[in-house]
């Protein structure tokens, strides 16, 4: 079994427990976003379980043409989700890897194949989970704010969750979501692509940043840590004061402000 791309997904009722797969990028570079994701879920009376043995979905090796290395890493994650709880991932990219590529990675393995497939069916990107399962809402808080959202390509084209991030932000009454020029275009991260083809990646990142800055929004949000590493690293190098923030951190700040 494998999960079809871009299917219309039916969502379960709000559960009492979930697993959080924090992703290797947030683990080392933006743990606040991971903690915020957990807090948002807990604030809706969901118990969050964070398996301490989790490491990475294996995507860096997988997209570079090293399926065996990817399998070796992914295989270690497969046994961490024994209970039949949803697995929430604060990244469209890692969620896409787990939901769409793990079943293919283990399709020839009679033991791990079915396990990977059953896990894939339980994987939810954070914003789709908050919108469709938790049905979270935010009261009016603070001053009016213009916000620009950068959506990762995997969220947009593999997980189809770009609309859920948008819908969540649209629920916050004082937030005005502004569109950027070439909204649907990649920021140039692409994992190893960013260092294998640095000139192309840098050109894409600088165009993306110029489009974002041209909106005049003071707040930039993304639901993917990889894009943020790329965009924030480029922004800082350019001497810009703008920094992107993970959507989990942004939403959790709103929830706290409203309390």
């Amino acid at each position, binding site marked *: 079994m494998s999960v079809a791309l871009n299917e219309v997904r039916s969502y379960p009722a709000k559960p009492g427990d979930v697993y959080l797969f924090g992703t290797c990028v947030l683990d080392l570079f933006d743990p606040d976003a991971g903690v915020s994701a957990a807090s948002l879920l807990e604030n809706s009376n969901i118990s969050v379980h964070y398996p301490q043995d989790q490491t990475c979905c294996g995507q860096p090796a*997988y997209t570079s043409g090293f399926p065996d290395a990817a399998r070796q890493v992914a295989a270690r994650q497969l046994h961490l989700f024994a209970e039949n709880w949803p697995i929430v991932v604060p990244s469209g990219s890692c969620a896409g890897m787990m939901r769409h590529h793990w079943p293919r990675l283990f399709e020839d393995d009679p033991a791990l194949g079915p396990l990977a497939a059953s896990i894939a069916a339980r994987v939810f990107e954070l914003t789709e989970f908050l919108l469709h399962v938790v049905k979270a809402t935010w009261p009016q808080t603070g001053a009016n704010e213009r916000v620009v959202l950068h959506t990762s390509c995997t969220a947009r084209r593999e997980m189809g969750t770009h609309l859920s991030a948008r819908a969540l932000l649209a629920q916050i009454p004082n937030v005005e979501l502004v569109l950027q020029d070439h909204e649907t275009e990649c920021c140039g991260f692409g994992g190893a692509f960013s260092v294998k083809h640095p000139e192309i990646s840098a050109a*894409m990142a600088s165009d993306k940043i110029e489009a974002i800055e041209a909106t005049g929004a003071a707040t930039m949000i993304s639901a993917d840590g990889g894009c943020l590493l790329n965009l924030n690293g480029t922004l800082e190098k350019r001497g810009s004061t703008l920094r992107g923030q993970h959507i989990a951190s942004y939403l959790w700040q709103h929830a706290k402000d409203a309390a």
Partner: protein
Amino acid sequence: MNRPANPPMPINFHANVRRVVANPVLRASFRGAMDFLTAKRATQFPDANAFETLRAQGEQIRQYALSRLPDLLEQLETNLTRNGIQVHWAQTPDEACRLIIDIASRAGGGLVVKGKSMVSEEIELNHALEAAGISALESDMGEYIVQLAGEKPSHIIMPAIHKTKEEIARLFADKVPGVEYTNSVDELIQIGRRVLRDKFRDTRVGLSGVNVAVAETGTLCLVENEGNGRMCTTVPDVHIAITGIEKVVEKLEHVPPLMTLLTRSATGQAITTYFNWISSPRRDGEMDGPKEVHLVLLDNGRSTAYADERLRATLQCIRCGACMNHCPVYARVGGHAYGTTYPGPIGKIVSPHMLGLEATRDLVTASSLCGACGEVCPVKIPIPDLLLQLRQQSQGHSKAPQLPGAGSGHKTLQSIAYRLFAGLYSRPALYRIFGLLATRLRAFSPNQQGAWTRSRVPLRPAGHSLHERMKSRNGAKVK
């Protein structure tokens, strides 16, 4: 490793890219042109569901044709022959060039006037003709400009898209006898038209590509906007068509959905100005049309792709160019940087079976896998998935049948890096120690981090990992 006898040298993609990325005029010109084409296409597919339905049909037609490819090619040959069209088979570009030179020589053609044909670019026909003492003249306006400039097409639909109006004006003034500098587009087109009209009248041999060949009727379909294709295929005594073996479909009824997808995806047109159906040479009693029609069917690696269950999907391509128009990499580096006949996303997946994986090793990695190409492909070729497949083959990690040059992307340092990655990230206890060290020693993160820090500040871990922070918390509630 599986290497061809004389593997082509690896394309120097990185050097090509640096040249273009450093040229703001070229970059802006590509960006503008791609924006124009994507906007035009978007007006033709206003309804996403209707597009999905139509492209699913296109995919089915192409997949069905490929599933019966050997049979359909035989049927095509039978029916073309019955219609009086002579069929020739070429395994390699050299064979195809020799066949065409023979036909042209027999016809007494010192000049071949060409309609637009990417397959003729693929076999580098113009060079071969010149070496045999035959001139070639491109009659498609874009191709004519590129030929005058001594360049190659930078886009499969818009060959001269890399040139500004002013560059074309200067080129015409320099290269076309008796032409004054003008940057009026209308005048430039009229100049080209005048030059070409005379040639059409005088030449004995016309050459064209083929968009679809219909097996059941033995018909060749050709779409175009300038009328030069119709001139090439009807005015000279001999018409030579050339195409890849994948371009066949079974039935006439398969043509309209494919052509609807092709013209809308390529140029944002519901239909092209000219739609040519070539079904035979001039028959007895007819006043015009060529006396001979030939079709050259080229393999050049296509049967290698065909033999691989996954790479076979590359042969679904109808050459619309939408993938390059939507590609963020193509928009920044342009077509010439790829160093291949077919640039852009489709070029990355069809060039390996034509040139081998060694020559194209930097092309298969030159994608962020953003998926924009797969999203617009009118026949649903899963381009990002195929790039993944080719990356595995390039590293020598694929179980599928191997393309020439498999394993040539292998680099020892890279292999060690991924072995280390796998060793570390598959040992949770070791990984936690690594996380502890990386966060505690964050002040010692190197300032130079290779290609990453050329345009970004160095990566520096947070003070405490998410693992640590999740271990020491008891849930959060604000209401």
